[in-house]
């Protein structure tokens, strides 16, 4: 048993060092492509750290969104950047400038070490035993309609956070669409291997998304994890050269994007009308209502993430 804990301590130490080292390399190396790849590796190590901290829900979200979708977005932006002529490598500052500001150069480092010391002290001065709100969550879990405590917090106890988060996702998409005149993904003829792989992977990803959505009620999983897996399927389809048929890019696409926030707002309004409180579900219907919201949210998150990756609004794409 003692050997086991020693091994775990060594693992924790190495993982911590690995995270810091990857972050530092990703921020310090001059080649942007390398920096992004290191950042994706950093995201995967973060997923391991979440597992060590007994947060499998966060680990799933990190692996799918933090490492997967963010990495795809960064790489596609880098490709856009090189095509507009900006350098892939960071411009090195001329030596003269460096020397001139030599003394000033030290100041940020000193301030930063002070910040690190203060933050470290603040973290270490917190009480070492504090169960937080876990007792309250466990007490009310029976009335939440689901048995996974994280899903209960996300969609019942703090449902309005999640509702506003759906709005943030929608706002980001609106922002991206309104900047649509930037040259978007070039249509490359799909590589046959990628095409084959996509045909195999997309149905599997849809199945995994459905499983994660369903299992989220009582085990790690849920709308965000399922939505991001669906988004990843969308990204694959876009990379393989597939586009929505033009009759679907107008209202139908916008309806799917809106379905998540709209279902949330509709159920919020109904709960206000019935019980007078925002998102306070009647206990006997809580499970069903959460499943409805989660299904709509999964679809809408998946489509929104894929649309964020595509960049320009679909109609604009048609005109090009």
């Amino acid at each position, binding site marked *: 048993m003692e050997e086991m804990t020693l091994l*775990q301590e060594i693992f*924790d130490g190495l993982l911590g060092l690995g*995270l*810091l080292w990857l*972050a*530092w390399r990703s*921020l310090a190396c001059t080649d*942007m492509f390398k*920096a*992004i790849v290191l*950042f994706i590796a*950093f*995201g995967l190590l*973060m997923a391991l*750290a*979440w597992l060590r*901290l*007994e*947060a499998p*829900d*966060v680990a799933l*979200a990190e692996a799918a*969104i*933090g490492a997967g*979708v963010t990495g795809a977005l*960064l790489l596609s*932006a*880098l490709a*856009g*950047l090189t095509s*507009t002529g*900006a350098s892939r490598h*960071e*411009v090195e500052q001329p030596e003269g400038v460096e020397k001139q500001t030599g003394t000033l150069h030290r100041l*940020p480092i000193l301030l930063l070490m002070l910040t690190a010391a203060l933050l*470290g002290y603040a*973290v270490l001065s*917190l009480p*070492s*035993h*504090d*169960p*937080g*709100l*876990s007792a309250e*969550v*466990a007490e009310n879990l029976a009335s939440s309609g689901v048995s996974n405590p994280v899903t209960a*917090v*996300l969609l019942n106890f*703090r449902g309005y*956070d999640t509702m506003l988060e759906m709005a*943030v*996702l929608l706002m*980001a998409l609106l922002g*991206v669409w309104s900047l649509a005149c*930037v040259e978007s993904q070039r249509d490359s003829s799909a590589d046959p291997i990628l095409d084959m792989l996509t045909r195999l992977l997309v149905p599997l990803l849809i199945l995994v998304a459905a499983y994660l959505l369903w299992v989220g009620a009582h085990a790690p999983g849920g709308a*965000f994890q399922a939505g*991001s897996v669906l988004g990843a399927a969308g990204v694959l389809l876009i990379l393989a050269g597939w586009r929505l048929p033009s009759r679907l890019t107008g209202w139908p696409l916008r309806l799917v994007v809106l379905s998540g926030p709209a279902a949330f707002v509709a159920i919020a309004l109904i709960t206000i009308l019935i019980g007078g409180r925002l998102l306070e579900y009647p206990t006997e219907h809580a499970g069903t209502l959460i499943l409805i919201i989660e299904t709509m949210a999964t679809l809408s998150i998946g489509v929104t993430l894929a649309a*964020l*990756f595509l960049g320009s609004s679909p109609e604009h794409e048609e005109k090009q």
Partner: protein
Amino acid sequence: MNMVFLYALVGVGLFCLGLHALIMHAHLLRKILAFNIMGGGVFLVLVALAKRTEEVAPDPVPHAMVITGIVVAVSATALALKLMLKVSEETGNAELPDERRE
């Protein structure tokens, strides 16, 4: 030192590394990477501190907050990257203008 505080301190370290890069690098893509790493540090502190009491299961409230945070971070990143492409399209350079250097 127990593992909770080890991970929390790694989180502090990531936040500071990110903050340093955010201030010192001019390239906008690097700033976006730095911002994501700062966010990762904050998430690590939150989730580590949720596990302080060994006897009971970790506090699910910070977990839910971090999941929300990850999704908000990816939306903000997508918008920031689009804005960066717009800047580089206008100026041919993925950096914000700096009066001192001109």
